């Protein structure tokens, strides 16, 4: 509870459940709002938001074992595909639709993003930045698919099937006419303010669809 009740210090981010991106998301989400978390895992973030921010929490997760854990926590999670779940929901069903560390693993990321901005008034997207200097250096000097702290997998067993950067996402937002309400960049537990496409390990964007879209 203390993690959100005290305002975050400018440079360092506290963590929520051991994750700084969760801390950022928990600050962005308003108390008492309706939240859908796509790829919600075992529902840790949703359970935390339900207790600490009294949100109406729902989730989608493909792994049956994780869904069981989430439901056992009391979180309403649907076992199935993210896009399939989104397509059923009416427009504006949620205040926030969260896509945390999931975008790079989805098969049709653009459709997922468009659908989440239809179903949610706001979208919160967190993803690892493939243009972080560590990734660039690893790639440049080894000549191999980068393996770093952020991208620890071998190319053949990585769950990540789309690699995107801060600049890529900003360009897409412009093309699609989305409004970027807030963007927060992290390196470890430090906030990045300069050269985010080079310095940020994780980017968190709060976006909304263009009015009338």
């Amino acid at each position, binding site marked *: 509870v203390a993690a959100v009740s005290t305002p975050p210090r400018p440079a360092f981010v506290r963590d929520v459940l051991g994750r700084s991106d969760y801390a950022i998301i928990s600050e962005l989400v308003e108390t008492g709002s309706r939240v859908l978390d796509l790829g919600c895992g075992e529902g840790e973030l949703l359970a935390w938001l339900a207790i600490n921010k009294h949100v*109406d929490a*729902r989730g989608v997760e493909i792994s*049956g074992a994780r*869904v*069981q854990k989430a*439901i*056992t*926590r*009391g*979180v*309403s*999670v*649907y*076992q*199935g595909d993210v896009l399939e*779940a989104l397509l*059923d*929901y*009416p427009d504006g*069903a949620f205040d926030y639709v969260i896509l945390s560390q999931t975008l790079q693993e989805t098969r049709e990321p653009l459709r997922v993003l468009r659908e989440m901005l239809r179903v949610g008034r706001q979208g919160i997207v967190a993803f690892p930045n493939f243009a972080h200097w560590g990734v660039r250096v690893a790639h440049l000097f080894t000549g191999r698919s980068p393996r770093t702290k952020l991208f620890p997998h071998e190319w053949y067993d990585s769950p990540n099937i789309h690699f995107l950067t801060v600049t890529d996402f900003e360009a897409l937002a412009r093309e699609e006419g989305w409004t970027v309400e807030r963007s927060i960049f992290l390196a470890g537990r430090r906030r990045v303010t300069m050269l985010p496409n080079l310095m940020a390990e994780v980017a968190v964007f709060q976006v909304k669809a263009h009015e009338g879209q």
Partner: protein
Amino acid sequence: MISETKLAHFDSLRLDSGVELAPVQVAYETWGELNAARSNAILIEHAFSGDAHAAGISAEAGQTGWWDNMIGPGKAFDTDKYFVICSNVLGGCRGSSGPSSMNPATDAPYAMTFPIISIGDMVRLQKMLIDSLGIRRLLAISGGSMGGMQVLEWAVAYPEAVACAIPIASTARHSAQQIAFNEVGRQAIMGDPEWSEGNYYGKTRPARGLAVARMVGHITYMSDDSMREKFGRRLRGKDEFAFDFSAEFEVESYLRYRGSQFVDRFDANSYLYITKAMDYYDLAQGRPSLGAALQPARARFLVISFTSDWLYPSYQSLEIVRALRSLNRDVAYCELPSNYGHDAFLVDVAEQTDVVRGYLASTYREAAA
């Protein structure tokens, strides 16, 4: 945990068919204590051949309840926390009004003059029971198979009376395949000469037909995997074929045993009436869509299906989930891994216990807050 079946009597019940059934009786059992706020009551709905004796050891026959692995102290439906109720369905033969009940107008069993009943009628009678117990709102209502149909019906018919609905291995409408298996069972009974147009009470019962009906039922409750594991091609008590038509394979003798056992506890006419009620069941009947039918529901839902259940396949649970999602209702869904086929909700309950217990606990917390 010794449990005793109680009876509640009501003057009459108006049925979906338009007929008035009077008087009407319902058999039920309860476990645990109703709290002062009357906010911890859970109604359990039994499947086709179940009864009110869902848990504990019955006072009369010393029998263990059909969902004893789910209901009791510390179990999924924790009787240390919750007040749990289960009643025999209308049309049944285990204490509630059904075709084997006495018709006061003739002083003989109704037999086939018993009116046709529906899932909705079953639920309306349960509502009268719940009202008579002084419970205005159920914390939860849950059941598998036909029990799940009653859960859905409750959530739609009495939205304010249900906080949490948990339909398991169920459907919002019976499919052609489900109707087909029921029809085979009915034909087995009606084709038995002892059935005598249903007028067998006090005479020889159509035991053969009812046993065959049950054998078919049991096949549909299992899976290819579970049958292979349980019986394989094993012969019973020997290694070589006898080259005759005795029950040689273990699976044959199992089905014959389950068939003959069923005859002792179930009424053939109840089989006809209850399977018909299931076949008539279609929540969306007379409404433009399943979503429109579920529109009145206010409960939070936990929908559960099982991977190997081919009688009530997951797609049927998903239809319910998708319709609820299109209404932006609070719904959780999981497909639990099991090899036990449709029987899974009765026998393979470890994971089912976890999700049900957790979901109930959070509903109870929210209801109390």
